[in-house]
């Protein structure tokens, strides 16, 4: 049951072969068994969760169920959920109980989905290993000595370990796709503006986008049907007609033009990962895809540009955490300035402080033009690269991350090595494009572990339905996405 697709679970619930309460309880049981070692969840609240399951059962009994009614979903702890502690992985918000619902939380409520709990994440979504979380790192279910990726590491681990039916994530520079790649699941970062950011705690507002993390492309499509849509409370939300993301899943891929950017297969990519991606491309050829070589010449600039723009926005977005109205306030202080300094020094972790400092610096008088403005100009060039690329192909493919899951602690003292984890994902955020990671196989690590590898699919603006189709067709002829880790051995494929 825990391995069933969302569609199957929905059918079972509506056929009443199982109740939402039973389904929820079975996930809660797995959580209490495995979460203590994996640490995928920050907050759980059985009574609230089961109350939702009960309500879902009533709704099913009343005959007005929606596809996800009664299905237990894990929510990244970046989304404000009414009466739930919402921490964003930070000590700063360790005591913050949200009085309101994020847009996507109310969307899931509206369809009667069950909130299983709030998943672990890098503090304020800043990190690629989940190691910056105030609530401790998350173990990769495929190998407990390794990281799940980040920042949506808790959601990725929860899906991989089947501690939920599906989860939500957010992706500012790769925070859905890189952990999806490292944990062997399917994750989609939609076009910027497709999912409302209202109630999603801001890291870098012009880059942040929420999306699904699930077992398959089909599951992601069903999640997208709930998450996507116009919300007038977010000025950057796009007012588009409601779309059914499952509508193109079964289209054949014959004639699909797949662009391979040469910059994604150059130095920096683990050979073992590269091999898996090449095999996946071969599979697509068999499905009728035509391969085109393309170039995204400014790819190398995406990391420096990102690490100017994202910290700049973050330094301002995080100013509200000042100890005045909510969140952490130092126990003792002499005056206002002392209260600010101590509260923020105690409340934020090292990576968050590093980015606030970088962001404050690049926005300062005298540096703004050289850093912030220049980065904005290059951001346009990067977006232009994609415009030209999509003149030659329908989708772009490549690796989602340069390596498989790395060992906990391996990169914590080397921020630049950590930042390079997002080399293939960041440019799509800068361009506002949708991107996916799809399980494409396993690579052997040096110590003989078999670790998942994700294939990245980048689509043109609003091409999510096509990307899901491209992924779904692949998942019809491969079984990488249905592989599960053996949590009791926790050292590789079951």
């Amino acid at each position: 049951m825990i391995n069933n697709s969302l569609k199957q679970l929905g059918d079972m619930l509506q056929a009443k072969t199982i109740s939402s309460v039973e389904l929820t309880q079975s996930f809660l049981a797995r959580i209490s068994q495995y979460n203590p070692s994996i640490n995928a969840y920050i907050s759980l609240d059985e009574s609230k969760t089961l109350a939702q399951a009960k309500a879902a059962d009533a709704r099913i009994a009343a005959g007005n169920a929606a596809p996800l009614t009664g299905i237990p979903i894990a929510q990244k702890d970046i989304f404000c959920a009414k009466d739930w502690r919402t921490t964003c992985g930070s000590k700063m918000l360790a005591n913050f109980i949200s009085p309101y619902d994020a847009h996507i939380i109310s969307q899931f409520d509206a369809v009667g989905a069950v909130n299983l709990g709030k998943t672990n994440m890098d503090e304020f979504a800043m990190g690629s290993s989940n190691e910056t979380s105030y609530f401790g790192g998350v173990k990769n279910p495929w190998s407990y000595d390794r990281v799940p990726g980040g920042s949506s590491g808790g959601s990725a681990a929860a899906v991989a370990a089947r501690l939920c039916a599906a989860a939500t994530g957010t992706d500012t520079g790769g925070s859905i796709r890189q952990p999806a790649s490292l944990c062997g699941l399917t994750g989609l970062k939609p076009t910027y503006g497709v999912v409302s950011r209202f109630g999603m705690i801001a890291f870098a507002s012009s880059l942040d986008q929420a999306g699904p993390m699930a077992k398959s492309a089909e599951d992601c499509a069903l999640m997208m049907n709930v998450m996507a849509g116009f919300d007038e409370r977010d000025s950057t939300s796009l007012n588009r007609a409601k779309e059914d993301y499952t509508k193109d899943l079964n289209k054949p891929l014959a004639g699909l033009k797949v662009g391979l950017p040469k910059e994604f297969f150059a130095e920096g990519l683990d050979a073992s990962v590269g091999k898996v991606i090449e095999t996946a491309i071969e599979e697509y050829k068999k499905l009728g895809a035509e391969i085109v070589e393309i170039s995204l010449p400014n790819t190398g600039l995406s990391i420096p540009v990102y690490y100017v723009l994202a910290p700049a926005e973050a330094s301002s977005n995080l100013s509200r955490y000042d100890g005045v109205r909510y969140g952490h306030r130092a126990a003792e202080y002499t005056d206002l300035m002392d209260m600010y300094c101590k509260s923020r020094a105690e409340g934020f972790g090292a990576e968050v402080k590093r980015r606030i400092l970088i962001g404050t610096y690049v926005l300062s008088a005298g540096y703004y033009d050289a850093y912030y403005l220049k980065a904005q100009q290059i951001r346009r060039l990067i977006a232009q690269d994609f415009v030209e690329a999509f003149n030659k192909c329908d989708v772009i493919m490549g690796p989602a991350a340069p390596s498989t899951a790395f060992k906990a602690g391996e990169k914590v003292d080397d921020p630049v090595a950590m930042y390079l984890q997002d080399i293939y994902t960041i440019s799509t955020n800068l361009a506002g494009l949708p991107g996916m990671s799809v399980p494409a196989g396993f690579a052997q690590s040096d110590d003989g572990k078999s670790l998942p590898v994700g294939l990245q699919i980048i689509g043109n603006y609003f091409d999510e339905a096509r990307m899901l189709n491209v992924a779904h067709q692949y998942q019809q002829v491969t079984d990488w996405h249905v592989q599960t880790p053996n949590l009791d051995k926790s050292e590789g494929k079951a």
Partner: protein
Amino acid sequence: MEWEVVIGLETHAQLQTNTKIFSGASIKYGAEPNTQACEVSIALPGVLPVLNRQAVHCAIKFGLAINAEIAPRSVFARKNYFYPDLPKGYQISQFELPVVGKGAVTIQVPSVGKNAAYEKVVNITRAHLEEDAGKSVHGAVEGMSGIDLNRAGTPLLEIVTEPDMRSAAEAVAYAKQLHELVQWIGICDGNMQEGSFRCDVNVSVRPKGTEKLGTRREIKNLNSFKFMQQAIEYETRWQIETLEDGGTIHQATVLFNPDTGETRAMRSKEEANDYRYFPDPDLLPLVITEADKALVQAEMPELPSAMKARFETQYGLSGYDASALTTSRELADYFVATVEAGADAKQAANWVTGNVMAKVNSVNSEAYSISSSKVGSEHLAQLLKRIADGTVSNNAAKQVFEELWVQNTLTNVSVQLTGSTITSQLGAIDAIIEAKGLKQESDSGAIEAIVDEVLAANAAMVEEFKAGKEKAFNALVGQAMKASKGKANPAQVNDILKKKLTS
């Protein structure tokens, strides 16, 4: 050395919208602390701003009213600084690309002492939309400061002038004119006590005849015209004295203390924040089309300048009178209503800008609004008709006006300034004329008798007149008026006297 003061103003006008500029919270003044602070006002994690269309409408209206460039694309920026009443740690404002660009306001500087009244154009640099901060409340809780976020997010239009003003009088005239204009077009209630209209004044001095601007100090948050006048005068004197004593002026922000009448530096600009402005990624650029402007233009009331020109042609008023009458919407309405109630336009203009406003100002110089008049337009028209039909002289009419004012004040009559609902009380004017014996003597027989008496009693003056001394004639008129106890119709006295002396 002769010094010249250079003044520029930054005015924050609170816009008359229903809700805050970036959220749906109410902006009503005076509510219990934090009862108008929604998730956005408190800056909870995850909240986002959504621009209030009404606020944009107000900005466009102002831009059109001062004939300014309205930016087809303007950008909201974040002004970053920490303060307890600034919940997000940044204020959303406009920086590089404001919604309203260069424009101009024509002001009427009133006559002071020997200096005659004059007109002057004050150039507007820009006007931009921004949100207000909350309030820090000290002393409500012992040993602690409280934060009230009801005001946080209230929409403001910040209107910035060029350093065009050269005296406190000009600065105050500009501020009053702007104050009137924003109310005239209905974008601000102008309530200075509640902080709906506040001015920051930049003051510097330089030797007269030189070009280079002196170092300026900014007087913050002036919420009365009287204080503005006092603050600028004090600040100007202080700067001149400092320079003459060999000192230097340091750029600073100063506060005016109404109790001492002095300005004092609150912080020097050298320690000022680096605000790290950057475009707010939560808001799209504000795009204003020609169609948007046309829509606002269609709702625009007749502007003071257009009304002034119309008064000159329609009523034959002088430029000065027409300007004076269009300094406020209420005043213009009052004048028009007086004319429509049957008064002669020129006489009405003289009275409204003269006797009526003088009385209003003497009662309340700060509010200086016709709304504090105790004599409505119907009454005034009636009174002016009594002058025109010869019932009372102009001088006597002033006494009637005074008496009417007192009566209405005593009986606490709620005067409807314009309109005809008080027709029944019009008899009050004739009653006062009667009771005070102010009725003008227009019976030519009676006047002739008085003139005869005066001529007989002042034979010497008559001789002087006949010898060519014109002044003697005026003296004789004076004697005749005196003899009639001021009641004789002066025009008739003139005529009869002239006839008798030259026959």
